[in-house]
């Protein structure tokens, strides 16, 4: 008797769970204007909806004074699994006679990038980020090699931390 009860219970539960799935797809079917998530891509090119988190390409963040935060530490270059980042640095002499290493060219090989975001994670200064651009293809491979730091840009001065005056 117990076995028969269990058998019938199993059948009934099977139907309930099937009905759940059917109702969900029916909801999607009858409300397409709400549920469809596909983009009509070339048609809605002027107002695309791409998620902000979408990893399109790497950029070096510049502020309004044309200053970036890259210290040319090459951690991103080392983190990159397929050598798509090349940091070219140069030695400059500061006013007080010290030699200092600064960024010369931040070379980004987009053609080799797998958009893994490991460079973003490796950067200690949060100087780079990924933006959600997606129309990246072109006819000439060489145009995919980009220099990310803008001409004339320089390292952002760190805000001086004034020691607290103890009273």
């Amino acid at each position: 008797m117990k076995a028969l009860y269990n058998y019938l219970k199993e059948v009934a539960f099977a139907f309930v769970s099937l009905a759940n799935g059917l109702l969900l797809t029916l909801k999607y079917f009858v409300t397409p204007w709400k549920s469809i998530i596909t983009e009509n891509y070339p048609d809605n090119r002027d107002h695309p909806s791409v998620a902000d988190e979408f990893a399109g390409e790497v950029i070096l963040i510049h502020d309004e004074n044309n200053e970036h935060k890259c210290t040319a530490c090459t951690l991103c270059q080392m983190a990159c699994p397929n050598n798509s980042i090349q940091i070219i640095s140069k030695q400059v002499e500061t006013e007080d006679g010290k030699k200092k290493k600064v960024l010369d060219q931040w070379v980004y090989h987009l053609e080799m990038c797998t958009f893994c975001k490991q460079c973003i994670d490796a950067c200690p200064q949060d100087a780079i980020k990924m933006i959600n651009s997606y129309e990246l293809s072109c006819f000439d491979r060489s145009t995919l090699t980009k220099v990310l730091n803008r001409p004339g840009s320089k390292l952002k001065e760190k805000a001086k931390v004034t020691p607290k005056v103890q009273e």
Partner: protein
Amino acid sequence: MISMIQFSDVTTWIHQLLSSCMAPWLVFLIELVVAAVAAVVALLVCVIIMVYMERKVAGHMQLRHGPNRVGWHGLCQLFADIIKLLLKESFTPTRADKLLFTVAPVLSLCVSLLALAPISWGPGLVLWNTNIGVLFVTAISSMGVIGILMAGWSSNNKYALLGAMRSGAQIVSYELSAGLSIVTIVALAGTLNTGGIIESQANGWWVLKGHLPAIFAFIIYIIASTAECNRAPFDLAEAESELTAGYHTEYSGMQFGIFYLNEYINMGVVAMIASTLFLGGWQPFYLPFDFPLAHAFNDIMALKFMETWPAWISWVSLAWPLVWFFGKLFLIIFFMMWFRWTFPRLRIDQLLKLEWKYLLPLSIVNLVIVALFIVLGLHF
């Protein structure tokens, strides 16, 4: 409605017209060809609608648009696909059995078209009014697996062979519960003639007046017939992710097109049988209750109000049974598509377990209960 123009009047008029100018054997031949062409064309139109419907239903259920580039809302997509298939080469693999490989699609198409013969499309509109109609359809539809086995085996491809073997196991199993649920309705109606079964539902469809057992039989028939059509969630015969395309892996061009067409024709036939047996075929909706509102509703449904109208309008009533027949047809087809795009595919052991442990015992018990109902006179 019955007192107005009927399909039998139209067919007798055509028969008399032809008999007046031709020899009897020629009349017979012409009538056969015209009837067959009419049935096949009607079915092909249904198939065109079904393919478009399937793609749209699939799209919307998977949060997509479906075809929307060729023509208005993708309406011409199917024609573009057919032209593509016609232009492609029908390639035969070197090691394949050439004769069987070529014959297989044609054979399975013939078998599924044969099942159309005893189907009653409207009152008096039936190709072959035989007293074994339902038996004939069940016999023919179980032959469909021969074409699939032939295709799978002659392709000389392991995926094709596996798909064909699975399809064989599946169809042999699910024939049983499909047959038993058909027997349930045959027992209630007391006839195997499709027209007779439909006429027995003039005072209510069997799914309504056959109590719970008829509803059970309907559900079991829908499940079993989905399996017989090799459609998801029972599409083990072509399981794309495991067997590339199953039994038609090696087919290309229009030979593949015929298999594709065949799948939809089978679906149409199965839906026609389901609507004939359970949903009253071309009978309009009838409430089997005895109070004034129900009577008024039933009179409207039977187009009683049109009897006083002029004769030329009553021609419109000729289409009324067809509207109901095709409406039910597409309702059941929508159900099958809904299942396909909702449920994941079963494993082969789950498939056989479902049939032999659940559907078959349930349908046997169901048949016994229906027999008791009939003996005790409990049904309407």
